[in-house]
């Protein structure tokens, strides 16, 4: 925890964020360019899905991000409630809209891939329904952080929701094993190694890394905004107090 508290000083955090941001932006751009090139121009059509497999290169990384960001939200909420780290609530509040965005992308691209693959846009099976629940959890978190005049109370309520809702993450991951679903099983993160061909795995991993560094960039920007918003609130209060 001592290491974590090194970043507790908002001014120090802003200095680090400003130093990291240009690099994370550059890495995101390079990964996106190479990932998109391989995904759209230099990878084969699938023997079952045909050209529609190209949707996988945005759908799967978005799905991984939606779960990873929720896990980040869970950890940040725990740190905020247990150790009262001053930046943890701000980090959770900053991350939730990004997670909601990736979950929305997962749902829409999944639907667009489902129609040619399964013959339907949507089915109420375990995987799809649990991802929809994840999207609502993100919306609930965003709503709760904005629901109170006192941001501390809103952040606390949202943190409790994030912790309770974390039970949904393993349900999403293992839904394809626990229940009979239309959605295919895991083909990358498996005990016996990836079953996907290298020509498809490389663009998939590049796009996943690109989405991860994108998340880092946008998160750093949003946490700085949150820090500024807290400073503004404190200044306004001191002004009102005369």
């Amino acid at each position: 925890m001592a290491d974590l508290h090194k970043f507790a000083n908002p001014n120090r955090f802003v200095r680090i964020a400003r130093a990291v941001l240009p690099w994370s932006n550059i890495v995101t751009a390079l990964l996106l360019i190479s990932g998109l090139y391989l995904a759209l121009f230099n990878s084969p059509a699938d023997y079952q899905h045909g050209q529609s497999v190209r949707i996988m290169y945005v759908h799967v990384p978005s799905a991984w991000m939606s779960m990873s960001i929720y896990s980040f939200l869970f950890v940040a909420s725990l740190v905020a409630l247990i150790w009262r780290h001053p930046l943890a609530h701000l980090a959770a509040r900053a991350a939730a809209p990004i997670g909601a965005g990736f979950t929305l992308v997962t749902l829409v691209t999944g639907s667009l891939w489902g129609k040619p693959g399964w013959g339907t846009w949507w089915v109420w099976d375990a995987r799809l329904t649990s991802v929809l629940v994840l999207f609502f959890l993100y919306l609930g978190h965003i709503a709760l952080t904005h629901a109170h005049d006192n941001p501390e109370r809103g952040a606390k309520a949202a943190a409790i929701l994030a912790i309770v809702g974390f039970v949904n993450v393993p349900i999403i991951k293992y839904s394809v094993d626990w229940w009979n679903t239309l959605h295919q099983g895991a083909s990358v993160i498996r005990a016996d190694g990836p079953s996907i061909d290298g020509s498809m795995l490389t663009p998939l991993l590049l796009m996943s890394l690109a989405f991860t560094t994108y998340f880092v960039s946008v998160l750093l920007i949003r946490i700085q905004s949150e820090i500024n918003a807290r400073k503004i609130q404190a200044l306004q209060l001191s002004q009102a107090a005369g």
Partner: protein
Amino acid sequence: MEALITYLEMDGYAVYIWPSYGIVALVLIGLAVWSVAGLRATKRQLDLLQPAVEARRRARHAASTGDGEKIAEESSQ
């Protein structure tokens, strides 16, 4: 040109593939623009508020130490 059209058609899957990449671009660019705009807005507000609050604090401090008139003169210049 014909090769480009054939590529864009994606063997008949274009109607599913391009909207998928479109929604990704829309959401990711939208989130980034919204976040940068938010940061700029809070910075602007902070730049406006900070000097005003600082000036008031200095004036109050000066008044309590008896340098009120001097500070008032300085700030009017």
